[in-house]
């Protein structure tokens, strides 16, 4: 079975001479949610724009569901929906007209029932006759999502869909995304909110300076790169760590009331048992104990830092 999106040896050099994408190779599987992460200017939008036909690739090939995006652009583009990063809408048109327009543009016959369904899902139904210029930023973002969904794409690109969107709307949006995934839509999204990727994505790709640094199952990534921390609430506050415990590389929280031990959960010997014994010997009692997996954000920051 072919991939939903298959990018091979893709290079993009802008007219200014700037090399925005360097030898990108990437396969997106059918039906997954793929999160593309990377700092500002990494090339996320460039990659998405190139796949969607808005930016000309300098070299390389891109297939959408097996169709070359240049030679078979009609077949390829019919499958793809795009919600770009920038809020760009026809200010003086109504919500209903602009969403219906998108459906027609993608070659689908007018279908008021489908448009109604989408507008309702995105809580835009009561705004359908409003001019877009009268909507708030978050509502405009939803209009752009409605436009992309109007033509029932099989592959959906969301370029920072939750930038500037409030908490409640963000939750609604993710519900829509989950429902789409349930119905078999492949979703590629970028975000700077890493906890979103952590909650939503099946796989994570990290791009930095125009290169894909890593592509990994989210759970795998969290497991292999994830450090765990053991936090002990001490009975008494301490000023320093006893010399006998030096080999554990412990950290003392600034308050002096909490001891932090970092370890790798996959090692055969995590050292926890030994540490607890040694703590007892040193006479450091504790009230409470917690373990915490490092978040994607920490993993991500470490990754990008390593490369620079």
């Amino acid at each position, binding site marked *: 079975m072919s991939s939903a999106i298959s990018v091979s040896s893709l290079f993009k050099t*802008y*007219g200014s001479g700037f090399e925005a994408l360097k030898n990108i190779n990437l396969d997106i599987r059918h039906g997954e949610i793929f999160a593309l992460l990377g700092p500002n200017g990494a090339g996320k939008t460039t990659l998405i*724009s190139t796949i*969607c*036909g*808005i*930016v*000309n690739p300098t070299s390389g090939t891109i297939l959408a569901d097996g169709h070359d995006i240049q030679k078979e*652009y*009609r*077949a*390829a*583009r*019919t499958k*793809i929906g*795009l919600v*770009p990063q*920038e809020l*760009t*809408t*026809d*200010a*003086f*048109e109504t919500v209903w*007209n602009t969403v*219906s*327009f*998108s*459906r*027609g*543009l*993608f*070659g*689908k*016959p*007018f279908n008021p029932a489908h448009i109604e369904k989408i507008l309702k899902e995105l809580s835009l139904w009561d705004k359908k006759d409003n001019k877009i210029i009268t909507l708030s930023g978050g509502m405009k973002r939803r209009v752009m999502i409605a*436009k992309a969904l109007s033509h029932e794409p099989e592959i959906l690109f969301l370029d920072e869909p939750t930038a500037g969107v409030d908490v409640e709307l963000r939750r609604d949006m993710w519900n829509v995304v989950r429902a789409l995934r349930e119905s078999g839509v492949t979703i590629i999204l970028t975000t700077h909110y890493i906890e979103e990727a952590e909650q939503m994505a099946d796989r994570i790709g990290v791009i930095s300076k125009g290169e894909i640094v890593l592509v990994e199952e989210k759970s795998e990534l969290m497991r292999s790169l994830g450090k765990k921390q053991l936090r002990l609430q001490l009975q008494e506050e301490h000023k320093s760590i006893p010399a006998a415990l030096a080999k554990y590389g412990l950290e003392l929280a600034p308050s002096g009331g909490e001891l932090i031990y970092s370890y790798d959960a996959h090692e055969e010997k995590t050292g926890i048992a030994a540490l607890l014994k040694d703590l007892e010997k040193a006479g450091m009692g504790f009230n409470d104990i917690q373990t915490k997996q490092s978040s994607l954000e920490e993993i991500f920051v470490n990754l990008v830092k390593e490369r620079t």
Partner: protein
Amino acid sequence: MNLHAIRAIYLFEMHRTWRTIMQSIISPVISTSLYFVVFGSAIGGRIPEISGVPYGAFIVPGLVMLSLLTQSISNASFGIYFPKFTGTIYELLSAPVSYLEIVIAYVGAAASKSIILGVIILATAALFVPLRIEHPFIMVLFLVLTAVTFSLFGFIIGIWADGFEKLQLVPLMIVTPLTFLGGSFYSIDMLPPFWRVVTLFNPVLYLVSGFRWSFYGLSDVHIGTSLGMTAVFLVVCIFIVRWMFKTGYRLKS
């Protein structure tokens, strides 16, 4: 053919016209009426007839052409420039439409508007002067051919323009002077020989002359030459548009 897309773009563009009906239809009608008052009545009183046609009636084809040209260019150039300016062009570029479909829809809409406008102006003119159309079929052919050709030309300008100044530059600096100097308001026989030859290099002359011939059977150049020149210009525009889309010129980075 993605007919749904052509229809969507066409209706969208026509809808924009109704929204901006004042600029689109009413203001050209007012300015044409002013031309009638100034040229037809004030000056025309002193130039009684040209080859047996009253001066007021003589300038009607030229006036219609003037509006047709400027409106076709501004409608079409604005139609494609605006999405570029606001960024909504992303949708057009990512949609499963061929450049031919985009051109048919945008140019079709712009041409429709200027044809409607041309007819309205003609009707307005009929209120001022007695009109006579000897070759209605050729008249309609010229109306449509000119509207399509110059909408296509406007479309090219809209893609080429990277600022509002450029968008207005060509109509203002080139098209309006060419129309005024292209025999809209006079027969080139009235010019000294040297300027008559110079005028022959003005493409607008062929349009105005051909169009006037369809009304009164009067022309500065042969009707076949007029049609031929218009067709040549149309083909040149088609090739330029084709090249623009093939290379993504000023549309894609």
